């Protein structure tokens, strides 16, 4: 179960998630400090550790639009956040899969700040309102990559498995 710690509108760009001026920072161990850097208050809560891992960001359509910067996914993963959105932009979603960031496409999601969500494979239950919303699952091939922890570990696993077969 995770609490909604941030509620966002549609078309949230990767410039908002991870502003361009921090793009020189690439290491997943370092990108979390600049997560939503232009929202000073939310960034402070994240960096100071006030927000628990497993907390949820809820967004409307087209989350992660714009730039292909992978930091936008790694910065969220670094804080252990789960993103539940009505839909995701393609490159961001692919980056999230490739890095093993949990994303949940939930086309009808209704949730407010502070609501408790139970995120399952088929649905999201908003425990605060009691309403349940269906999830559009990732294709099995993408889910397998997420489960392996990302694209590079996934390919490495498969290559090793094939060589030893």
């Amino acid at each position, binding site marked *: 179960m995770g609490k909604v710690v941030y509620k966002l509108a549609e*078309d949230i760009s990767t410039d908002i998630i991870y502003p361009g*001026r921090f*793009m*020189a920072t690439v290491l997943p161990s370092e990108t979390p400090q600049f997560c939503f850097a232009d929202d000073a208050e939310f960034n402070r809560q994240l960096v100071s550790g006030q927000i628990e891992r497993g907390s949820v960001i809820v967004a409307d359509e087209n989350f992660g*639009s714009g*730039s*292909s910067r992978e930091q936008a996914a790694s910065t969220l993963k670094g804080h252990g956040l789960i993103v539940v959105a009505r839909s995701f932009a*393609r490159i961001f979603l692919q980056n999230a899969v490739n890095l093993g960031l949990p994303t949940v496409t939930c086309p009808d999601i209704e949730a407010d700040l502070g609501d408790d969500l139970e995120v399952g494979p088929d649905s999201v239950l908003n425990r605060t309102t009691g309403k349940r919303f269906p999830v559009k699952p990732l294709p099995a091939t993408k889910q397998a990559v997420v489960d392996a922890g990302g694209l590079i570990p996934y390919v490495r696993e498969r290559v090793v498995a094939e060589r030893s077969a």
Partner: protein
Amino acid sequence: MAKTLFEKIWDKHVVLQEPGQPALLYIDCHLVHEVTSPQAFEGLRLAGRKVRRSDLTYATVDHNVPTTDRSLPIVDQVSLQQINTLTQNCSDFGIQFFGLDNPSQGIVHVIGPEMGITQPGMTIVCGDSHTSTHGAFGALAFGIGTSEVEHVLATQCLVQAKPRTFRISLNGSLHPGVTAKDVILYIIRTIGTAGATGYVLEYAGEAIRKMSMEERMTICNMSIEGGARAGMIAPDDTTFDYLEGRSYSPTGKRFQEAVDYWQTLPTDPAAQFDRELTLEIGDLPPQVSWGTSPGMVTDVTGNIPNPEDSSDPVEQKTIQRALDYMGLRAGMPVGEIAIDRVFIGSCTNSRIEDLRAAAKVVQGRKVSSSVHAMVVPGSQPVKRLAESEGLDAIFREAGFEWRESGCSMCLAMNPDVLQPGERCASTSNRNFEGRQGKGGRTHLVGPEMAAAAAIEGRFVDIRNWDRD
């Protein structure tokens, strides 16, 4: 079976296709820049891998390079480190590198076509969302993330689900002063920022056929702003003429053989698209973005939207939030918007035709005293050509800064940024909150509109501009 341009290229590049699974696609050309590549090379090193096809991999520095005097040392240590890292990586892995001291250096999406690296029928990827630019040549080109950059460096392949196809046909002739930029802004305004999600776009119709390669690149460049995987235009004589004689183009008999193949690529007349849209653009006025997404666009002769005009409460809120960020009054005429900065540049609009058109607008005039304006050519070849034509002198005499090539203020990684609250007429591609600097306000326009705005200090209808 009749096929679309996209399907012909896709089918030719599938290495492996298991039923119900995404395809493994072969990549013909991989473009690399300094910002999205360091970790990918580090991953290769850690795994003890080589670059599988270093001969199909090309690198340059653009995103974070200084655009000031290159004879001076680089002050920005982060920029210097990124440049040095890519230089070292290219040397270690045997990759062709167009660095700061190379006469071909420039924005990756400007120099690929300029050198003839970009060719019809290719699959092209780059760790940058505006890779869709290269689709103007009838290539399948799209942006990828850093993990995928590493995957392509290691394998020259990429796993991809097959997208659906969406043809946008453009009819009519543009009014003088109305540009390819206005057309693509109008398209995104029409279909929305997620309107082409899951699709590869093909732009077609008489208006496209009449466009130069540079105009076609401007159109394809912003396909990603409509959510599309890629944007494509069928190659024709305009494409072949552009490519002939460029340094990486085939020569002699091989060029003719290539043209023979390229001519087989256009969509077959009987081919079916998953979605079709036809737009009339003959009466299109210049377009200006007013909000914080590239779909928030209106005519230069129009007014800023009023949230109350919408019956949808969600849309009302979206409009109000954008107006608050942009510091605009609902209902005000676009022509009353006063601007502080002008940026002419970016992979959308920094090529020679863009600079020529903008120079024609400013020639013999002065930049408004309230405006700080700059021109950032897309590449060193563009810069040299512009200088040989005297365009730099026209811009300088008018009061513009004339810079070295790079991405510059499009994404505000280097010191070329807006200050909070500053309002910019920009020929770039994104007007997101904070895109050009924290609190910066971006209005997307074409190069002539930006140039006229610099002179007048506000937006004016370029169709009424006296160009002598």
